[in-house]
Every structure is written in structure tokens, then in C-alpha cells.
């Protein structure tokens, strides 16, 4: 079974991960006419390695047993397989117990889920959720469609928070120097020191928290500071928005929150703001409002994006200008000057100047109906300029509104942490409570928080968090937090609306929330989180029936009418500082990772394995460089480089990202964790050592040197590429608004679909027929590519709904990842600045399904309603079906990827979906469990299933409403109407598979002035 080195090398040579030198890419490009749309640079070059890979169902290494197996282990395995081969159907079922309640709660009906409204706080903003609970176990998170901010749909973080809650690596008890202690021991231990602190007014007491949006927690902190008047409360998060608040302070003289109202914006200009990514505050609403204006049959908006690193927002842009972050500032100043704001002289070169002139013209032409959005990575001055520009353009109060901040007591977090470290070093701190966060890992390198903590010999240090992480390791006392699904709390959504965070389950490990910890510190022993939160709101409710209001808030998931009212503020600033001097040095940009953020979510396998929107990278955070720079420096993806800044060095792998600004490197935070847990520890590279307090997002003068090493990266970008002939019509179709107006059917007519009857197999009619499809449903899906913003929420929702396994980096490299729906990113045009498109690909549920014809055991068959059923218990794993699937959507359990042992993970699973074992094929089922449930309910009520009654998991999670599912036989259904649109097209229609999933081609709205 051992592979000889030669074979191994051959296999590695054709593995899709194999990266090409850019020179080779160019040489290949010159030889062949590449495809119009491409997913990876290798595909663009049409290299022979790539073609070999494309013709295969799975990458070449996928089906090989490459792990070392001992002879004895092999014989045992084979012996067992032979013995069991014919006997699999004859297994005797084990005797199963039934454990009913002793006293059943009134509202629980066994076998039916309950939904509770709650909210998840991430980055200080609460996202309202409805969480599904099966017999007391939370199993799925969904957005709350009744929330005033219109948060139908959710994001990857809300979806994946479920796995965090059941994470077996979470800390399970308080600890002193790593040894288990009880909560009582902890409260006894801090009582004495707290009493002596109280005697001196809390002079030596310090608290460090992430930013707080919970009104109850803010109130508790205020009470604590009253009790200890000389104590100090510091706030720090590595994803701080100091520049955003600083910009507001600079412009208006007060820190206000900026909210955007894109429904009224005809022209949108993003200055390095990735406002369609879920990490942007209020992104769900921004996404919904933005795509509502992308309908080519109505008044379509136009999006201009200036950015450094390609982002989903840049991908949706009608015009995108890649600039280094420093040049974005120059651009903003030039734009302000052109609009008559004195912003310092700033000159732009030819192409950029033309771009700017066009943008200025457009913005001025849409007075009061445009918006300029500034990204949080830009310095405060650029934010202030954006405010001034929006005011000048008459947007303030229309497309831009200003409100109170969502965070209670907003401070400059970098300064706040700096003060704390200074106090620690000065020996002024006698008791330090770190309530969440992970400053030892993620504090600015120049503050050196870790050594400050180690050297300052603080008598009592307590870290309170979900994990015993890097910070916990350096704090003698550790207490374990409760997850948001386990504890009472509250929070504000990005528009200010208050939600009560309602737990769905008792703490799995008796963790206590921050509220309970603070109560313990204030000597209110024994008070529960519920009492703390409820008492706070009872005190706020001066008039009226509190009980009714409280019940209402818990039921709805929010308190109606608590959104912040817009404030009238005017720009007072006249001086926006000077533009930074021209700097030709290599620029280093820091970005949060799109999946694991600052590293706090690093142990979440669902997020780690989620391909990042643009690079489709999993499990790693390589540094991005542009193709031009890669060519100059002779670098290719997977080369390891050393980055040096201010004497600090880190190593990182390189990823050549088409569309990245030249002469700049982007590195991603959140990786290289040392104590994250089984999924997060050791994955990727830690770049925090380069990040300093004065340059949190961009630094200049970084030195990049090649090390000669290489590092294997697990990007799924080249996998599952659809095998089309050179010169064939692309599977991804897009056009401009002008083309669409002239020729609405441009996408459909690209390929001539065979006439429906043209098949050797029996033609099936899926209309209503009492002897076949008695109820007359024909399920289908339409995916509007114009709406899809590539946020990946559908993928994580699918993982959560359908019990999809995490396979790990090694397996992703071999192409064995299990996602039932993938979001392909296509690029088009110049590598330096390509257009980019997203195309979500679930199972097409073909009416003439190629997979069904080749299954020797009938494990995949067609239902009367047109579903392509997959029967796991029949599947014997021949993989003929995936071999015959032109869309490459079938996924195979090459190994036992499911964890059948860990008790926490068993509790997490959706009880309505089978958990697949090794050797079984699986794929998207259109969430058949939801269809069956709805059909049963409708039959019991003797009615038809209403349009929209069934939502697939991906559809429900989609904040953009890009995925619509329903009965295509009903001509009035939403899906049938979408399919009747001119933009509707089938992928690979020429193969006569007659897919039930179809796409609405993307239409862009470029400015004719900039076209060509």
C-alpha cells in the first residue's frame, strides 16, 4: 500500500494545488485562447495539468489511499470488509432505549421543533436570530425576519455559532494555574482582594473588555465603577473601529455612528469599504438594500469601488479601481478637492484621473441620491472627508444618517489598551479582570501585552472566556464563560434596536456569563443572569405593564421602537490634515480574515473549511500579492516569504490574487493561534507580530524576501471546474445593462438547448397526474446572480442543516471537502483588474439526470416531484454517479468524516437528516426534509403548499434573496416567474440534462464613459 516516491511525485504534479510560475502562465496564454471566464490563474492559462484535472470527477489524488497503513492493519481491514460485504443488510438492530420526560414541559411536542428569538453579539453588534430547538437542543440559527432592520437572512457567523456552542474544546471548569477549581473556590479567592480594593476605592482594580453594546452590561459596569470609584475600565478589540469614530469626531466634533440607506442611492462609491461582506456593521441590511437596486428591469444603481485587496464588494462593482491603501487616501482627497472641499492638494495620474473625473460627474449628477462609503481600514481623516463629501453631495439625512453609537461608552481602544499596559508596567495594577478577548495573542506588537502581563506580577489576574486560550495561559485564574445560546444577556443591533439574548439550553459546563461574574464581584452572590437582565429592564420600564412588554420582547426578539433616531449633525471640520508624502515602499495591509475574523473563531471547523469569498482558501491565511508584483519578484502561490517590518519578521505563504493592487501585500489576521483547540491551533501564520498600535491597518516599508520554501495551501478554487471544451460557451454568463436592454435573452441564446423530447430514455411529464405526480408539485430553484454577493451564508447554512462533515486541510487538498453547495468565483478580463462574478452551485436536480442512469444499485433515483433522490443506505460507493455528473456537485465520503463519538456533536445534529458514514455518496437534496414536513402539514390541512412556505436552508440564510425555491408547475409562484424572465438560463443546457436549478444571468451597469 505504500506509494513509491515516483508515483507520489506524479500525483502531486497533477494535483490542482500545483501552482504555475506566472511566466509559464503568460507563455501558455500566448499559445492558447483562454476561456472568457476563469476561476484560477491556472485555468486562464489552460495548462495541461489543469485540463487533466478538469476532466476528472475528483482530483487525481482523491481516490487514493495515501495514508501509511501497516500490513496487519491492512489485512484486518480487508478481512473485515470481506466478511461484512454480503452481510450488511443482515445486521440485527441494537435495542434502543426511550427516555421520556418525567414531567414534560407544556409547549414541547416530541418530534417537532420550537423556535426561540434571541440575538448573537459579534464585534459589539447584536444580530437578531430565530434559533431552532429540538427537544431542548439548539440545532439551527436563522435570521429574524420580523426585526425592524429587516434582517431576513443571516450570515456565516450566526450560522456557525452553533458549532461554537457544542465545541468540545471549550473550557469546562474554572482553573487556577491550569488545575481545575470550583466556582466557589474562585469566589472565595477574589473576595479578600476585592475587599481590600474596596477600602482603597478600587485604585488597583482594572477591567479589560471588548466593546460593549449590552445595556445591562454597561449598567453593571457603571455600578461597579461607582463601587470602586478609582478603578478603570479599558476596552480593546483588535478589530476596533478607532478610525471610524475618530473620523466622526474630527468631522462633527462628536462620535456618531454612520448608517447607510442604499435603497435611495443611484450611485455608490466605496473607498475601500467592503460593505457587502458580513463583517461590515449592518451588512445584512446593506446587502438587501443594495441588491434591491440591482434589478435591470427597474432603475439600476451603479457601484464604483476603489480598493486594495479584492473583496465581494469589489466583485459586484460596475467599475473597480485597484489602488494601494495609501493611494485610496490620495483618491479621497482628490475627490473632495474636486467637489470644492479643501482637502490638501492631491494629484492623480492619467487613468485614475479619468476615473475620478467620471465619478465626480456621476456623484454631482445624483445630488442627494448618491453615497460615499469609507472602509474602516482607512485613517480617520478619510472618514472625515467622506462625511464632508456626503454632506456636500446632499446625501446626509437621505442616503447617510447619523445616530448615537451602538457601543456604550465608545473610547479610542488602542489608547485604552496603551493606558492599561502603562499602568501594568508602572505597578499600579493589583487586580486585573480580562473579560473576553484575547489580548496576549492579538494586542498590538509594540505594546507587548504578554510580557507586560508576565513581568508586572499583578497579584490577582482573572481571564474570563469560552476557551483556555493564549491569554488564559498567562492569567493564573481562569473562569469559563457561557455561550450566548446558554446565558441571558441583551444587545443592540447596528441600528440601535435592542434585543434580549435568550438562552436555549442550560450551560453545558456550568459556565457563567459576564453578567454573573460582575454580580459576583459586586457581592451580589447567587443572582442569576436572568434576574440581572430582567431587573435592569424592569427598572427602565417606568410606565406600563412590564410583564407584557418583557414577554413581547422575548417573543419578538427585539424591543419595538428602540432603533436610534437620526441625529442632525453638520461637518464642522475645515482641516482634514495633509496627504501623506508619496511613498514608493512596499505597503503592508492588515485585514481581518473573512472567516475567522481576529482569530476568535479559529476553532470553528465550519468557518475554517469555508472557502473564503475571493481566493476560495480554506484553513490558511496566505499573504495576497498582485500578479504584476508576483511576476516582478518571481513569486508564485505557495512560495513562502519572509515579511519584515520594524525589525519584526514573520513567515507567510504567498497567494497571487488577481485584481490585487500592485506594490502592496495584504495579510490576514486570525491565524497562527497557539492555543485555539483542535481545529484552530497551528493553522496558518500569525501576522500580529507585525501589527503595531500606530499602524493597525496599513504600514509602509515592509521588506518581502523569498525563502525558497513552499507551503501547501488548500484552496478549492481550481476544484470542481466544469469541463467545457475550449471555445465553448461559458457556464457563467453576464452582460451589460445596455446589452440586456437591446437583447434581453442574451444568456439563454448563447447555447441552443435540445428540444425537450430529444432523449433515448422515457420522457417524463412532471405535470399533475393522479397516477404519477398526484399533488402536481415540481420543485425547482432560481438563483439570481445579480443578487448574489458571495457572502457564503448559504454554504454554512447547508452544513448546519444537513449535518455535513468537516474534513480538515489535508482532505481539502485532496479535493474531498463535502459542501453540498459551493459558491464559484469567476474572473473575467485583465488579471491585474478583472471583473469578478459569483455563482452558487447546488445540485441541479436534472430532469434527465446523468447520475441516475449509471448507478448499479438504484441508490439515486427520481421522485415523482422531480427530485433527484439520494438513498444513502443503498449506496455502495461506486462513485459512477459523480463521475457522470457534469456539474461536479456530488460529494463522496472517502473516509469516515463524521464524528460519531463526541457527545456534544451528536447533540448538535439535525435529527431530520441522516448522518452519512464512510463510503457513501451525498449531495444537495433541496432540503427534502423541509419539503416532506411542509407536504405533510398541508395534506393534514387539506390544502396546497403555499408559495414560499418551503424555504431551503440556503434560501433562508441568503441575505440578498438570491436563491428562490418553489413549485415551478405553479405559474404564479415566485420561482416560476423568475424562470420566465429573459435572463433565465440553464447551466450546460446543451447536454439536455434539463436542470431544475437555473440561473438569472448577471447584468452590470457600467458607465459608458469608462467602458472599453
Amino acid at each position: 500500500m505504500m506509494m513509491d516516491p515516483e508515483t507520489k511525485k506524479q500525483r502531486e504534479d497533477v494535483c490542482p494545488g500545483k501552482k504555475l510560475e506566472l511566466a509559464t502562465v503568460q507563455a501558455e496564454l500566448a499559445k492558447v485562447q483562454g476561456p472568457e471566464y476563469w476561476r484560477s490563474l491556472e485555468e486562464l492559462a489552460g495548462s495541461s495539468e489543469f485540463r487533466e484535472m478538469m476532466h476528472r470527477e475528483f482530483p487525481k489524488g482523491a481516490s487514493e489511499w495515501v495514508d501509511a497503513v501497516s500490513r496487519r492493519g491492512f489485512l484486518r481491514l480487508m478481512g473485515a470488509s470481506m466478511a461484512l460485504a454480503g452481510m450488511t443488510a443482515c445486521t440485527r438492530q441494537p435495542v434502543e432505549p426511550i427516555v421520556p420526560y418525567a414531567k414534560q414541559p407544556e409547549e414541547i411536542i416530541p418530534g417537532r421543533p420550537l423556535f426561540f428569538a434571541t440575538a448573537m453579539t459579534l464585534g459589539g453588534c447584536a444580530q437578531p436570530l430565530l434559533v431552532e430547538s429540538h427537544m431542548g437542543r439548539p440545532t439551527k440559527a436563522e435570521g429574524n425576519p420580523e426585526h425592524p432592520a429587516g434582517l431576513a437572512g443571516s450570515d456565516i457567523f450566526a450560522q456557525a455559532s452553533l458549532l461554537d456552542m457544542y465545541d468540545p474544546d471549550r473550557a469546562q471548569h474554572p482553573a487556577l494555574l491550569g488545575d481545575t477549581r470550583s466556582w466557589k473556590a474562585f469566589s472565595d479567592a477574589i473576595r479578600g482582594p476585592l475587599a481590600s480594593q474596596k477600602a482603597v476605592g478600587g485604585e488597583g482594580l482594572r477591567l479589560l473588555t471588548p466593546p460593549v453594546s449590552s445595556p445591562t452590561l454597561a449598567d453593571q459596569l457603571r455600578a461597579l465603577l461607582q463601587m470602586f470609584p478609582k478603578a478603570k475600565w479599558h476596552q480593546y478589540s483588535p478589530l476596533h473601529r478607532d478610525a471610524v469614530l475618530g473620523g466622526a469626531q474630527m468631522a462633527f466634533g462628536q462620535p456618531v455612528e454612520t448608517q447607510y440607506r442604499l435603497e435611495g442611492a443611484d450611485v455608490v462609491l466605496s473607498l475601500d469599504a467592503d460593505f457587502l461582506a458580513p463583517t461590515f456593521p449592518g451588512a445584512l441590511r446593506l446587502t438587501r438594500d443594495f441588491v434591491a437596486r440591482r434589478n435591470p428591469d427597474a432603475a439600476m444603481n451603479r457601484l464604483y469601488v476603489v480598493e486594495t485587496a479584492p473583496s465581494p464588494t469589489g466583485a459586484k462593482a460596475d467599475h473597480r479601481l485597484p489602488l494601494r491603501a495609501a493611494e485610496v487616501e490620495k483618491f479621497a482627497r482628490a475627490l473632495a478637492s474636486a467637489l470644492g472641499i479643501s482637502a490638501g492638494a492631491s494629484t492623480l495620474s492619467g487613468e485614475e484621473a479619468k476615473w475620478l473625473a467620471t465619478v465626480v460627474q456621476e456623484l454631482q449628477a445624483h445630488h442627494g441620491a448618491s453615497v460615499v462609503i469609507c472602509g474602516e481600514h482607512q485613517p480617520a481623516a478619510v472618514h472625515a472627508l467622506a462625511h464632508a463629501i456626503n454632506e456636500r453631495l446632499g446625501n446626509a439625512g437621505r442616503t447617510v444618517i447619523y445616530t448615537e453609537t451602538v457601543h456604550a461608552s465608545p473610547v479610542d481602544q488602542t489608547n485604552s489598551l496603551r493606558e492599561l499596559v502603562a499602568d501594568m508596567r508602572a505597578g499600579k495594577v493589583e487586580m486585573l479582570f480580562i473579560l473576553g478577548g484575547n489580548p496576549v495573542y492579538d494586542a498590538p506588537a509594540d505594546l507587548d501585552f504578554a510580557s507586560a502581563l508576565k513581568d508586572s506580577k499583578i497579584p490577582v489576574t482573572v481571564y474570563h472566556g469560552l476557551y483556555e486560550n493564549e491569554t488564559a495561559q498567562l492569567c493564573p485564574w481562569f473562569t469559563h464563560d457561557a455561550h450566548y445560546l446558554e446565558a441571558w444577556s441583551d444587545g443592540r443591533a447596528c441600528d440601535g434596536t435592542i434585543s434580549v439574548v435568550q438562552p436555549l439550553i442550560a450551560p453545558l459546563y456550568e459556565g457563567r456569563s459576564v453578567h454573573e461574574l460582575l454580580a459576583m464581584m459586586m457581592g451580589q452572590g447567587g443572582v442569576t443572569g436572568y434576574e440581572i437582565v430582567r431587573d435592569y429592564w424592569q427598572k427602565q420600564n417606568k410606565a406600563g405593564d412590564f410583564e407584557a412588554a418583557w414577554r413581547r420582547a422575548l417573543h419578538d426578539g427585539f424591543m419595538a421602537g428602540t432603533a436610534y433616531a437620526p441625529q442632525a449633525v453638520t461637518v464642522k471640520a475645515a482641516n482634514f490634515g495633509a496627504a501623506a508624502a508619496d511613498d514608493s515602499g512596499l505597503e503592508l495591509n492588515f485585514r481581518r480574515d473573512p472567516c475567522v475574523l481576529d482569530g476568535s473563531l479559529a476553532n470553528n471547523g465550519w468557518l475554517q473549511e469555508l472557502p473564503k469569498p475571493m481566493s476560495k482558501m480554506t484553513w490558511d491565511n496566505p499573504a495576497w500579492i498582485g500578479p504584476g508584483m508576483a511576476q516582478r519578484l518571481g513569486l508564485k502561490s505557495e512560495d513562502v516569504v519572509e515579511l519584515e517590518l520594524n525589525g519584526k519578521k514573520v513567515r507567510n505563504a504567498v497567494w497571487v490574487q488577481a485584481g490585487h493592487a500592485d506594490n502592496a501585500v495584504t495579510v490576514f489576521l486570525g491565524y497562527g493561534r497557539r492555543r485555539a483547540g483542535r481545529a484552530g491551533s497551528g493553522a496558518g501564520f500569525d501576522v500580529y507580530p507585525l501589527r503595531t498600535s500606530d499602524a493597525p491597518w496599513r504600514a509602509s516599508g515592509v521588506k518581502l524576501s523569498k525563502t525558497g520554501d513552499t507551503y501547501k495551501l488548500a484552496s478549492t478554487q481550481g476544484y470542481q471546474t466544469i469541463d467545457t471544451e475550449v471555445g465553448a460557451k461559458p457556464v457563467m454568463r453576464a452582460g451589460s445593462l445596455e446589452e440586456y436592454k437591446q437583447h434581453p435573452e442574451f444568456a439563454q441564446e448563447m447555447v441552443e438547448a435540445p428540444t425537450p423530447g430529444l432523449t433515448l430514455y422515457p420522457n417524463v411529464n412532471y405535470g399533475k397526474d393522479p397516477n404519477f405526480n398526484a399533488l402536481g408539485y415540481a420543485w425547482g430553484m432560481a438563483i439570481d446572480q445579480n443578487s448574489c454577493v458571495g457572502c457564503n451564508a448559504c454554504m454554512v447554512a447547508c452544513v448546519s442543516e444537513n449535518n455535513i462533515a468537516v474534513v480538515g486541510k489535508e482532505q481539502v487538498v485532496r479535493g474531498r471537502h463535502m459542501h453540498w453547495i459551493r459558491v464559484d468565483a469567476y474572473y473575467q478580463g485583465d488579471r491585474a483588474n478583472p471583473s469578478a462574478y459569483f455563482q452558487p452551485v447546488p445540485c441541479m436536480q436534472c430532469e434527465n439526470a446523468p447520475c441516475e442512469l449509471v448507478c448499479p444499485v438504484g441508490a439515486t433515483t427520481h421522485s415523482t416531484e422531480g427530485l433527484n433522490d439520494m438513498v444513502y443506505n443503498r449506496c455502495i460507493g461506486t462513485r459512477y454517479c459523480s463521475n457522470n455528473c457534469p456539474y461536479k456537485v456530488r460529494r463522496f465520503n472517502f473516509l469516515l468524516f463524521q464524528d460519531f463519538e463526541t457527545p456534544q456533536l451528536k447533540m448538535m445534529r439535525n435529527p431530520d437528516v441522516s448522518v452519512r458514514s464512510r463510503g457513501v455518496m451525498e449531495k444537495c437534496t433541496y432540503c427534502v426534509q423541509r419539503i416532506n414536513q411542509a407536504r405533510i402539514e398541508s395534506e393534514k390541512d387539506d390544502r396546497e403548499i403555499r408559495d414560499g412556505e418551503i424555504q431551503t436552508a440556503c434560501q433562508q440564510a441568503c441575505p440578498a434573496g438570491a436563491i428562490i425555491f418553489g413549485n415551478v408547475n405553479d405559474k404564479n409562484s415566485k420561482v416560476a416567474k423568475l424562470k420566465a424572465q429573459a435572463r433565465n438560463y440553464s447551466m450546460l443546457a446543451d447536454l439536455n440534462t434539463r436542470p431544475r436549478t437555473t440561473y438569472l444571468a448577471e447584468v452590470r451597469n457600467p458607465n459608458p464613459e469608462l467602458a472599453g
Partner: protein
Amino acid sequence: MAQIFHRSANALSKSSLVIVVLLAGAVFGGLFLFQRSPYITYAGVRRTQPVPFSHQHHVAGLGLDCRYCHTAVEVSAVAGIPPVKTCMNCHSQIWTNAPMLEPVRDSFRTGKPLIWSRANDLPDFVYFNHSIHLNKGVGCNTCHGPVDQMPLMYNESSLQMEWCLNCHRNPEQFLQPRDQVFNMRYRQPTSAKPVTVDGTAYTDQAELGRALVTKYHLRSERDITSCSTCHR
């Protein structure tokens, strides 16, 4: 050279051909029977339970309705096993000191649930829904057998796929009027004891079944034998 085999060996060799065929048949037949035997299906096997609960006594003797305990059966996929609170509704008044009921009282006092052994157990990849079967006129006793005659619970049927398909392919052989589904004494119509539905007296199950298939809007045989009806 002398013959190695005696003449009688001919008969042996001829008969061996038959024997091989018979043996092979016996092996396959044996496996066929074994796979359907109560050893595999547990059909008719009485389970040991923490409390020897008698359906015969409670249903036939006292006349309790199925839904008094199995409350979820009309609305959910599962029928629901009653909490001990349901037992105590009566047993806090009668048989309050019966030693046999000590586990029930103990569970009620401590809140620690009783652990029963599942008698009707489908494989985990099968998703059966009680509520829709009742709604379509499949009675409790069609699958569960004469529960009112069972002092200790057992599964009446094999619960194997061929048994499910037997009805999914020919539902008219088994359907009963909806108002009879909880009636344990319901018997299929005969000319001696007709069953009346909507004013029509049926003397024959085939006729009644066809009428009910239409009346209850049963989906087609092709519909309810699609794989995803039960497997997902």
C-alpha cells in the same frame, strides 16, 4: 488397473448434483428465513421494561384512548411516550402503594426519567411520520397489531422495508375510516359486519379501500414509493 470407484459412485455423483442445488437452495432459503425471523426483526419478542406496563389492562380493561398517553401522535412524526406525570394522574389516587409502581413514583419524586426499551424501532435512516398515516386512515392496529391484547408490549410486524412497501403499493388493502383509526377492535368489513362511510355500507375491504383512497386524497403509488418519501 482396478477401478478406483465402485459402481455405486455413479449414483452418488448423480445425486450430488441434486444435493448441491438443494444445499444452495437451503442456504439461501435459510438466509431468507433468518433475515425475516424474529431474531432479526424482534417481531413478537416481549421486552423487559422498568415497569411491566400492560396495554391489555389499560386499553381493553379500562378503556383508555391511545391519545391519552401518546399525545403527539396526531401532530408529530413520533407518537410520544408519556412522561411519568401521565401515570401519576391516576396512580396518585389508585394503587398508590403498589410495589410494582415504585419506579414510577420514584421517577416522579426525583424527576429522573424512566428508561424504556423501544419495541417498535425503525432504522435511523427511515423517517416515519405517525400524524400523516392517521390522517390518511391507517389505524394504530394496522401496524402495531392488537395492542389491547398485549400484556407486555412487542412489535407485531417485521417493520422491514418489504412490509412498508406492501401497504405503500396497495394502500386500499388497509385503509379504515378516519374515525376508526384509534379503535383497537375495528375489523375490516365483511358482508356480516359492513362498515358505513358517508352513508354507504361497504361489505368488502377492496371497495372501501378504493373509496377511502379517493376520499382522503391519497397520493399515487408512484408518489409514496419515491425514495425520499421515507429516506433523506
